């Protein structure tokens, strides 16, 4: 549909904003190459602009019904395909008088197709060109779509109009959604402010709340997702304590397979995969984990010296564990973190931590070279 391209002076219209640019883009009419190769493509809120040394061309977004990407192949780089509508407005002067195709393809020779596609799709949803009339093209477009609504219900133009209609409906429902969202957020904001006031009073010890009331307050904060120091020192929030018990039994089984120690993200994945729905958040996991030790559960949280956190079986014996590792190092002369990881089936980060811990206990010595960090039994 290359006849929809028009000459332009490249000046931005009132209310039009630039979104992104990409070099090395060629224009194809349908899939046929044109003379317009390797130029600078620019996306604005209203149009697609293209320029090189000799020409400046524009394509209004209002005629783009649909955009998608075609992956790179042997013969070409990735392409952005824009399906255009056959409008009723008089054709404006442009590089092509006519065209056999319904689409324009932009070939991205130097990359950037993915980002451009994402941004153009966002702009096609937002339809900012409808908000402010830019020249008179907008009014003619809306007028023409209503006349064509009535007269062209068949064939390609019928389908195009239907698509446009669907997009409009979607757009309306989304802007309705934005309005509802706004109202909701106003309410949320008010509650956030009240919470801040209460929290300040609690911190300044000016509060007169009973412990029941404080618990109620904390649960409001939790429900709303308001981050507050008051929630941090959660003295046994009921949800988290029961979660701790539930997780501990799941993890106990899993830990037996992973040599008694597991990183938090590994645990997180296993737990959520097992649940299938009603997944827990990373914060939930952490908040539950901190309670495990005090609840005397068979699994507990452990913070390694590097700051990495892990789960371990409570009845693990640290000294015995490290001695075993030293023995393993001895039997293979020396040991690196990934060797250990492979050998006993634990993650590399944890293996590294174990070796360092063994070193701290005096069981191993390190050899730090460009070939990596290795540990040897301590002969000293």
């Amino acid at each position, binding site marked *: 549909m290359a006849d929809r391209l028009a000459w332009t002076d490249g000046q931005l219209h009132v209310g039009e904003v630039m979104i992104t640019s990409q070099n090395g883009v060629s224009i194809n009419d349908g899939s046929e190459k044109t003379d317009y190769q390797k130029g600078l493509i620019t996306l604005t809120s209203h149009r697609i602009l293209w320029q090189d040394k000799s020409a400046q061309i524009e394509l209004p977004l209002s005629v783009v019904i649909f955009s998608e990407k075609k992956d790179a192949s042997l013969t070409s780089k*990735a392409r952005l395909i824009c399906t255009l509508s056959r409008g009723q407005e008089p054709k404006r002067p442009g590089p092509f008088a006519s065209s056999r195709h319904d689409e324009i393809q932009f070939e991205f020779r130097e990359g950037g197709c993915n980002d451009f596609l*994402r941004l153009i799709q*966002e702009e096609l949803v937002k339809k900012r060109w409808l908000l402010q009339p830019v020249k008179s093209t907008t009014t003619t477009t809306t007028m023409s779509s209503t006349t064509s609504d009535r007269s062209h219900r068949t064939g390609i133009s019928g389908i195009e109009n239907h698509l446009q209609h669907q997009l409009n409906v979607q757009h309306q429902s*989304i802007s309705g959604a934005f309005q*509802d*969202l706004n109202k909701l957020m106003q309410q949320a904001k008010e509650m956030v402010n009240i919470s801040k006031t209460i929290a300040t009073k609690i911190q300044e010890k000016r509060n007169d709340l009973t412990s029941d009331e404080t618990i109620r307050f904390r649960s409001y904060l939790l*429900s709303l997702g308001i981050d507050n120091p008051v929630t941090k020192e959660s003295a046994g929030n009921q949800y988290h304590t029961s979660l701790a018990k539930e997780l501990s039994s799941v993890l106990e089984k899993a830990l037996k397979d992973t040599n008694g120690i597991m*990183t938090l993200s590994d645990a997180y994945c296993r737990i959520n*995969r097992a649940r299938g729905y009603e997944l827990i958040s*990373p914060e939930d996991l952490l908040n539950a984990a901190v309670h495990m030790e005090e609840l005397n559960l068979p699994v507990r949280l452990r913070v390694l010296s590097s700051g990495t956190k892990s789960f371990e079986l409570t009845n693990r014996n640290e000294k015995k564990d490290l001695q075993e590792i030293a023995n393993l190092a001895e039997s293979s002369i020396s040991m690196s973190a990934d060797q250990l990881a492979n050998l006993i089936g634990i993650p590399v980060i944890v293996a590294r931590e174990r070796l360092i811990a063994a070193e701290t206990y005096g069981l191993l010595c390190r050899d730090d070279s460009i070939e990596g960090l290795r540990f040897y039994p301590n002969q000293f």
Partner: protein
Amino acid sequence: MRRGVGISGINQQLLEKAKFNEKGSELARDHLDKLAKQFETFRDNLESFAEKHKNEIKKDIAFRRQFQEMCATVGVDPLASSKGFWSQALGVGDFYYELTVQIVEVCVATSSQNGGLISLDELLLRVRKARGKSRSAQDVSHDDILRAIKKLRILGDGFTVIEPANNQGRILIQSIPGELSMDHTAILNSLQTRSSFTVEQLREQFKWSDERIKTAIDFMIKEGLLWIDNNGRNIEYYFPGLFTAQRVTAGESV
């Protein structure tokens, strides 16, 4: 709690409002009562909102992003807890928590090859692949991934986002803890359209001493982030993580 209705209700509300606005009445309890009331109203409104728009949040990338940004401005975190309102009513929780799991799995799968360094583009592509072919599975954006990673960091397992200088260029995700210094990130960020470099190029671009260059390179080799290509003529160093990033940018599938 009985919401005041009718004339007596109005009087009651007026009374409460007066009591509240009274200068002396600054009890935390009064604030709490007000909060409780608003909470109930809010819950109802959220539920009707969810009825109308729950699907949109799941399917529409731009809407979801708008939602997240507004929450951040207001000061609420819809993803903080699966027991939170937002999660329960709108299902945003499940969407993001599942995404988090997928991100971890992709990073674990690719880390032996790229040393735990992957570009955001490649990560997005692989996650989409993992999600399957259905249209809704594809509705995941860069923004969604970044938010999910932000949550992941709480677990303390080394997920970091490496932003490009001046916000121009590739975003990289590091999934294995290893402290990259400013020199290391400077090298990474300088390679926007390439995945390899030579010592001469670094010297030329940064004007660092040979000692400083060597230290940076050695560290990254040790960490498994950098590979050496000694092809006889000169030594080139390249990042497998960026190598695949290049292919992704060029539009190849992974």
